[in-house]
Each structure stands twice: as C-alpha cells, then as structure tokens.
C-alpha cells in the first residue's frame, strides 16, 4: 500500500466528480477543473517543445559543432518579434518558411492520399461471379459517385440530376448514421471506464494509468462519499444564499 497512490486515488476521484458535477449544474468546482487543466496542459506542452528546441536546434551547434544551425536559430527567434510594437511584422519571415513548406507538403500528399488512392480504390469490377460481391461493389461505386455528385455546387438539384443527388444524399445520411452509432460507442466507453475507477473496480487498468495498483484503488468509493458530502454542503449553502423566489437552476448565467 503506497500512501502517495492512495491520496492520488482520492484526488482523482474528487476531480472526476468535480467535472461530472457539471451535469447537475455549472458550478465553481467544474470551473476550477477547467482552469487547472488548461494550466497543467500548457505547462507540460511548454517543457515538451523546449526540450525539442534544444535537441533539434541547440545540440547541433553546441554538441556537434555544426555552426550552420545558428542561421535557423536566429530566424526562429524572429517569431518573438510579434510581441514588440515596432518590429511586429518581422515574425512573418520564419512564419513564411513554415507556411511555404506546409503548403508544398500538403499539396503533394493530400492529392496522392485522398484523391488518387481513393479514386483508384473505387475502380472495382461492377460484375463478378458471386452475386453478393457484385452487389457490394455496385453499392461502393455508385455510392461514391452519387455522394460526390451531391457536393457539385454549380448545378441546381432538379430533374434527373436532382434524382442522382438525392440518392447521393441518402448515402451521406447512411454515413452520418454510422458516425452517430459509432459516437455512442466512443462516449459510452469513456463513462464506463470512469465508473470502473469510481467504484474501485480491480478490472480498471490502475498501473497502466499511473494510478498505483488495485489495492489502493479499492478505497476509491470512500473518496466518492467524501465528495458527495462536500458538494451537498456547497449546494445547501448555495440554496440558502439565493432568495427563495429564484429557482435553484437559474445559476447557469453566461
């Protein structure tokens, strides 16, 4: 039993419930977790990008002695000109390098991966020996062509052409239905793992999430009870503070 991990479990439980408290109504507990998260995430990202600057830009100069890397470092420092009044437009110089490189790489790869490969992959036989594959192939080819036709913007969707685009829209709707169904799977997975955590279920991957082991995890429910007491007290104080006339849930002001 590691005391730090035990405290970690209770802190984790408190945080999880502070976020879930938004379901009851927006409250200071929820807002606190949002601000703590933005701060921690930004601090961590800063350390990550600083380390990369040292590896990719400073080490070549100071470790490998390759002085040509001084030029990119100077160019890179111009990014910070945006915070000065007079030289603020200088940051556009290093930015243009990033933009130019980004555009070039995008043009080449987006066309190859999203256009060419997808067009080639839809060139499949419309008639094969086996009836089922034939049906599947026709659905794939016709579906791709018709849903693409729906996004043709210069022609009004009327008459025969309107018929094609309407069927195309039905394929897009089936796609959106699949996305809707899949989204349910994704969101339920998240709440299930949170419940596994809150009830201290040994099946929860404690070690793989740096939360100690199942032995400390078993004490999670105590944290749940503690939080409910604290939150209940907050609601009690909140209810007395606001005059009786206003309904409790009015607090969701912008």
């Amino acid at each position, binding site marked *: 039993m590691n005391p730090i991990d035990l405290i970690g479990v209770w802190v984790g439980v408190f945080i999880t419930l502070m976020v879930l408290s*938004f379901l009851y109504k927006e409250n200071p507990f929820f807002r606190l977790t*949002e601000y703590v998260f933005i701060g921690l995430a930004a601090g961590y990202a800063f350390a990550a990008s600083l380390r990369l600057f040292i590896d990719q830009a400073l080490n070549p100069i100071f470790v490998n002695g390759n002085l040509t890397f001084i030029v990119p470092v100077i160019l890179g420092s111009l990014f910070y000109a945006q915070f000065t009044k007079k030289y603020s437009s200088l940051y556009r110089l290093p930015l243009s390098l990033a933009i130019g490189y980004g555009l070039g790489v995008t043009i080449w790869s987006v066309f190859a991966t999203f256009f060419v490969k997808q067009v080639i992959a839809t060139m499949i036989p*419309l008639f094969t020996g086996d009836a089922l594959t034939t049906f599947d192939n026709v659905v794939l*080819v016709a579906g791709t062509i018709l849903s693409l036709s729906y996004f043709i913007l*210069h022609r*009004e969707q009327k008459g025969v052409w309107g018929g094609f685009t309407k069927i195309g829209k039905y394929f897009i709707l089936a796609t959106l239905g699949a996305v*809707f169904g899949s989204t349910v799977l994704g969101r339920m997975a998240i709440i299930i793992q949170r419940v596994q955590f809150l009830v201290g279920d040994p099946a929860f991957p404690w070690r793989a999430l740096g939360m100690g082991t199942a032995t400390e995890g078993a004490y999670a429910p105590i944290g749940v009870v503690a939080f409910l007491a604290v939150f209940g007290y907050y609601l009690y104080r909140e209810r007395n503070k606001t005059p009786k006339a206003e309904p409790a849930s009015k607090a969701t002001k912008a």
Partner: protein
Amino acid sequence: MSQAILLVIVLVAIYWVAKIAVKRKLKTRSIPGLERIDEWIKEAAKLNRSVFFTPGTGGITTPDTLAALALLGYVAKHCVEHNARLLVANSDPQVQQLTEDMVKSAYAKAGREKEYSTDMVRYVSTRQFAYAAGVMGILRREKPAVNFFVGDFQAEALQIAETGRGEAIYQFGGTTNTDQLPFFMTTCDQTLIGEELYTAQGYLSSDPEAVSRLIGPDAGKILAILLILAGALLITFGNSILIALMEL
C-alpha cells in the same frame, strides 16, 4: 510520375472552370431551405419571439466561421426588414467584433441605427463547455422562434442542438465537421452538410471571384466521377490499364 501529371490536369481544369464562372457570373446552387428562412423570420416577428444565431467556436480565419458569417449577414438583413429581434452569441472575441459591425450595418443600411442595441450581440466564453452552457442558458431564457447554429462546432454542438430543439420552433444548422453532423441532422429542420455550408457563402456573395473559387473544384469532382466510371467499367471487362496508369 503520372500522379504529378494528373495533379496538373486537375488544377488546370479547376482554374479553367473558375475563369468561366467569373466571366459568366455563375452562381452556386441555392441553399436548401433558404426561402424557408424568410418565412421563419416573418413568423418570429409575428409571434414577437427573437431569432437566435451562433457561429460556433471558430476564429475569423476558420473557413466554416466565414461561411457562417455570410449567412448571418443575410439573416440580419431580413430580421431588420421584418423587424424581428435578432440575438447573436459568440465564442471568439474577434468574431464578436465582426458580428457587432455586421448587425449594426444591417440596421444602418435600413436607416434605423437607433434600434440597434448592444445586448443584441453577446460574447459568451472561449472555453468550449462554458460557451455551450452560456448558449443553453440564453436559449432557455429567450425561447427564440428560430435557432441558427452554423459554423465551426465540436462536441458542444450536441448540447446546443438538444436545448434548441426543446426551446425553438425552427432550427437551422450547418458545419463541415462530419463527427457532429449527425446531431445537426436529427435535431434541425434544415442542415447544410459539409461543403454545402460554403454554398451559403457562394450564393449570397456578390463577388464573382469568391463564387468562382467554389465552382472551380466542381471540375475536379466531375473528373473524379468520370475516372471512377471509366476505371470500374474497364476493370469489369478485365482491363486494368487505367489503374496501372494512375499507379505509375
């Protein structure tokens, strides 16, 4: 190598069609349900209930947000005409400034600047769930007749769509984010799906240059359709010359 040639062919075709579109001042196809917007705004004025519009969490450089603001210009103009009360809620500070100017100029054009009040265009929050909670609060209090939520949306779209469905009579949505489109489709009376959102920009824009940029890519789409048809037919008869050519 062949893919480079095909890229050049597609780009030339798009440029050529765009040039024609500018010369002939072509328009993109009408937005499904555009005329319904006019009826809804008239009904909102009759029932003395407001018209609510929110463009999502995108910034002024986000394509979806720009398309949404084009639609806001149209809605604002009609709200002034039928003197329905317009209410706009924003998440991005720069979009807030932009929408304030747009609504103010809509009233100015009709010579009724006095009627514009600052609480028509409100800044909620840049934080995703605070923005959603704020918009839900406004929807519950104002009970608008029409709820427009068009533009750049993430996971918060579902909350706005659900609350809007409960409070508003009509709901008009639009985004290119496929992950959120299902929640728009099942809760809105009219939804602009993916690139259709940009037809709003094209259809409402007076600048033929902007419209041609939307019509140009149609050439690429038609080319893709023809290639797929040709390739599929050829391979049906066992000939994979086109596939081999494109994979060079």
